[in-house]
């Protein structure tokens, strides 16, 4: 199948899953920033695991890595929410948000890759 179509199909699943996590996290603890942090860390973990575990299968990697994980996680919402925090005077919270997304996602990528190798 056309790679672009595979990415698109994964993108549908990723976007719907992000929407679902948003509703779930929103009802549990509230707040858009926690949704974004949750999807970014979870998605980075999955991408780290998939890139290592599915390295031999280009089709699955395109659907679930580029398509699903790429769409599940989001940079634009993260950027808007961080700027909103900074502008409303919560400068420390803005820095904490920027740092937790980065450190969380980088650790998750590493942990996902490590687990996929170990299993």
């Amino acid at each position: 199948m056309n790679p672009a179509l595979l990415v698109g199909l994964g993108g549908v699943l990723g976007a719907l899953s992000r929407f679902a996590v948003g509703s779930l996290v929103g009802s549990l603890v509230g707040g858009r920033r926690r949704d974004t942090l949750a999807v970014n860390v979870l998605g980075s973990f999955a991408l780290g695991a998939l890139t290592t575990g599915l390295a031999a299968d280009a089709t699955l990697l395109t659907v679930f890595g580029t398509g699903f994980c790429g769409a599940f996680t989001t940079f634009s919402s993260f950027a808007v929410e961080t700027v909103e925090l900074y502008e409303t005077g919560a400068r420390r919270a803005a820095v904490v948000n920027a740092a937790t997304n980065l450190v969380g996602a980088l650790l998750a990528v590493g942990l996902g890759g490590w687990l996929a190798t170990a299993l």
Partner: protein
Amino acid sequence: MSATEARSLERLKPLLLVAVGGFAGAIARHAVAVALPGGFPWGTLAVNVLGSFALGVLLFEATVTGRLGPETRLVLGTGFLSSFTTYSTFALQTAALSPRWAVANVAANYALGFLAVVAGRIAVRSLAAPEVAG
């Protein structure tokens, strides 16, 4: 159509809007990544900055003039732009770079992404200003 069918379609509508936007956003991100040169993750930087600008415009517009309805925000914001931009690929690519280039990649995505949000708002403000003033 029965009233029950109409109600269940109404419930499905947000999911359909997010799905359509997510499909197009992921394909557009892939197209940008294929079009730009490899080596440094230029594609991810480009989609993250462009998408942050567009989301800044979209969400700020909703609070200033409110011409775009909640459905537009779902299909373009939650669907298209959130799928177009990506944090996981950004993290994976950063982890694969040498320390020096990794720092440069994070700095470029963060600085340009945040500036793009601010630029998006300035664009909305300057376009909306004549109406507000008049």
